[in-house]
């Protein structure tokens, strides 16, 4: 299967070492979807570590009441930078990175539809991240070094107005979001075009791997929802510098208008991030259960359904802004309805492992953690969709715990799973399973210490975004446990980074298909040569490699 690799795969091993400058030049000028994907991933991992450190600092501050570890101003910029970085410069690029890498390979294409747009999108997004962090030096001029955006990651008006947010920190935030938005729209467009136009012969829409389907939905969502976010950033800049009054409440503008603009992006954004996690689960769970995915058409329908419904739920972030009983009731219903397609997904994954032979590789361990944790995150989501319950829980630590259960317990677990699964394809070497098991168990303990117990202070009345709290509220013990969990997560993440570096140089050679898997990316060499396939493959079912490995019982017979 993988005999076409002589030229490119060979050079990495045998060719004389190139100058560092040549290597750099190669990466900076590349339009290869795999290299761009890897740059997205590397860039996101760097910011994951940065924003993780910010989280650690916050947890030290909150471990005990009336702590003076950091100043209020520092704390406010820590939570703003943590949230903004994690959503825009970790979540989006890491998921688009995997998408960039995997989508063309899985549909048997030789590159993305628009390779140069692809490179442009990456570099403009990367520049956005740099700009956000340049605010530490540039926001108030050099004399104000250390100032960074401190308006919160959803930057509610009018706190972002010149009068409440002088200096340039908010401007850096706005420009960073704007630039990353342009990059994300470019990549989203590229993935949609690639999926629609570049599929190999025989790969009809209903034979696409579910991962590709989910990337199609997530890209369409990004395409639709990042536009209002970008528009709102431009309006905010006009308010700040040209004297317009969109959000300027002192002059008759509307603070609620910003909320609508932000959350019509912000809630679908959650799905933009979680759908790729579903995408990984849809590939990894069947392979390690040794069974075809259960209910492929229902999975596709549920994904598309989630995409549409997610556009109609944004105001559940606004149950307490005084929209009135009518909108509160409507958005309660819309939000609850999304539980139905989400439930279908969980049940179909359950049915996929049911009757299988589950191989607990590290990738599958993370995927199993994902299943349990996503179940819990979904259920606390149902609690929050109940508007009156949200009047109590909204903006409390319960909400913080809920969305971290989604972002860490579901999405980050699936990202780790994806690393263990596809790292061999990307690097040609296996990640250490032994280190991986340590990584999994330590991270699991840390995750549950932190985010299970984080629900409790919310129930006890602790609001989010406070730099310290009163000693007499009974919140300390819970915060202490939450903070202790963060240490475990940090250690586990270090292990993971170490594992990647070590395995890249010393890991066992993977070969083209280490997992005995079924989709097209495993039919080419690891790492795949430039342009992926020497011969464009032809497929006859959803699992082309299954058909080859089981000629007596091919999938094509049943579809």
């Amino acid at each position: 299967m993988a005999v076409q690799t002589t030229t490119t795969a060979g050079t990495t091993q045998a060719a004389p070492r190139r100058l560092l400058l040549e290597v750099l030049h190669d990466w900076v000028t590349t339009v290869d979807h795999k290299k761009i994907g890897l740059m997205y991933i590397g860039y996101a991992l760097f910011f994951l570590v940065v924003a993780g450190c910010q989280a650690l600092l916050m947890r030290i501050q909150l471990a005990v009441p009336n702590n003076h570890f950091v100043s209020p101003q520092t704390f406010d910029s820590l939570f703003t930078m943590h949230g903004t970085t994690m959503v825009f410069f970790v979540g989006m690029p890491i998921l688009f990175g995997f998408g960039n890498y995997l989508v063309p390979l899985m549909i048997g294409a030789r590159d993305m539809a628009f390779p140069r747009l692809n490179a442009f999108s990456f570099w403009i997004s990367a520049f956005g991240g740099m700009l956000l962090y340049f605010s530490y030096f540039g926001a108030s001029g050099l004399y104000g070094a250390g100032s960074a955006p401190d308006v919160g990651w959803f930057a509610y008006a009018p706190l972002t107005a010149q009068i409440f947010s002088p200096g340039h920190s908010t401007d850096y935030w706005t420009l960073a979001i704007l630039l990353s938005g342009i990059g994300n729209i470019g990549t989203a467009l590229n993935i949609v075009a690639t999926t629609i136009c570049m599929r190999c012969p025989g790969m009809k829409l209903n034979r696409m791997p579910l991962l590709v389907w989910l990337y199609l939905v997530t890209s369409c969502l990004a395409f639709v929802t990042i536009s209002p976010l970008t528009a709102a950033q431009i309006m905010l800049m006009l308010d700040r510098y040209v004297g317009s009054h969109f959000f300027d409440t002192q002059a008759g503008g509307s603070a609620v208008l910003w909320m609508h603009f932000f959350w019509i992006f912000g809630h679908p954004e959650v799905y933009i991030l979680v759908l790729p996690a579903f995408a990984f689960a849809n590939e990894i769970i069947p392979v390690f259960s040794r069974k075809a995915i259960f209910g492929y058409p229902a999975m596709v329908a549920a994904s598309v359904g989630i995409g549409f419904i997610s556009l109609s739920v944004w105001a559940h972030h606004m149950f307490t802004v005084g929209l009135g009983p009518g909108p509160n009731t409507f958005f309660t219903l819309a939000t609850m309805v999304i539980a139905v397609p989400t439930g279908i997904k969980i049940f179909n994954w359950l049915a996929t492992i049911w009757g299988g032979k589950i191989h607990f590789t590290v990738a599958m361990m993370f995927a199993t953690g994902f299943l349990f944790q996503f179940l819990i995150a979904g259920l606390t989501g149902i609690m929050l969709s109940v508007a009156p319950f949200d009047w109590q829980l909204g903006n409390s630590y319960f909400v913080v715990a809920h969305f971290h259960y989604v972002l860490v317990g579901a999405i980050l677990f699936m990202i780790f799973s994806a690393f263990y699964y596809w790292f061999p394809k990307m690097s040609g070497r296996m990640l250490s399973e032994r280190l991986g098991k340590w990584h999994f168990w330590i991270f699991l303990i840390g995750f549950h210490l932190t985010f299970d117990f984080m629900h409790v202070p919310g129930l006890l009345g602790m609001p989010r975004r406070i730099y310290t709290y009163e000693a007499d509220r009974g919140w300390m013990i819970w915060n202490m446990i939450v903070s202790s969990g963060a240490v475990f997560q940090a250690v586990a993440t270090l292990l993971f980074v170490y594992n990647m570096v070590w395995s890249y140089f010393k890991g066992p050679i993977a070969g083209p298909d280490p997992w005995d898997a079924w989709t097209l990316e495993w039919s080419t060499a690891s790492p795949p040569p430039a342009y992926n396939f020497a011969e464009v493959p032809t497929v006859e079912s959803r699992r082309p490699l299954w058909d080859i490995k089981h000629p007596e019982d091919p999938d094509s017979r049943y579809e």
Partner: protein
Amino acid sequence: MAHSFWPGLAVQISTGFSHGSTSIFAPAGTPAHSIFSLSMLVLSIVAAIFLVVAGLLLYAVVRYRHRADAANASVEPPQIYGSTQIELSWTVIPVLIVVLLFLATARIILTTQNAPKPANALDVTVIGHQFWWEYDYPKLGIVTANELHIPVSDPKHPTPTYLTMSSADTDHSFWVPRLAGKMDLIPNQINTMWIDPQAPGLYLGQCAQYCGVQHAKMLIRVYADNPPEFAAWVAHQQQPAVDDPGVAEGRAVFLHNACMSCHTIAGTAATGRFGPDLTHVASRDTIASGSVTNNPANLRAFIDNPATFKPGVLMPAMHLSQHDLDAVVAYLSTLK
């Protein structure tokens, strides 16, 4: 199982762990009570779903794990591509649960937010400021700050308090968990909510919408007074400020410095509105929006440098001499 476990845990959280102050599971007013009952229903349903689904997952994970020593270890398991009946059942059952949950929720939304206002309800206007609360009683002619006094509401003859809310600057949110859910205070917009504490006492809360540097110390204190005490409090607050000739010097310091630009003391030339009304400041238990006890030492430290207790507070350090500082603290301490 689900029905006994969750309320049990809730009782533990409300009594065993909390110090009675801000738990949403220790409701003391009608809106908080109806949210509590609804939340118990929701918790029971999600707990039941969790037990069923997590149980099935756990079973599958253990039962269907790969066993290397099994006779057919290398054979692929039977491939099953789906089943319309089964998939239909796990679509329809969640739909039914959603309908049930939605109807129960819609009822509470409407009964809380569309509740008719009784004629004897007390009106209070709440204005959020960076980083303190202004409370105006328009029909009683009282303006005060940070400590909200309202009458206890007897369930048989309810005397709820209706809050009309807005903000002078950024977004804030009024949250006293034992009395009701939160409601945001948004500039250029009027929101309303109502509370009806059913037992006398002090109910704590704090701002729940990030509003700037000192969001954390924008604390809320609601005093539910028995009717006679409330009447006495109202009568007292309606008096003009105490004018004690013994502290004339401190009064002069107050009126000859920038203090008067931001604070009001009824009956004097001080009519500023940027900071809390100080007409009866000495009658309050706390200063700095509930963050420290109101005593001369704290008052002195706060006036000398407000950032001592609240870094980022908008009140500037006044740079008064030690002598003037003592005088103005003595004056403010007489404003009972």
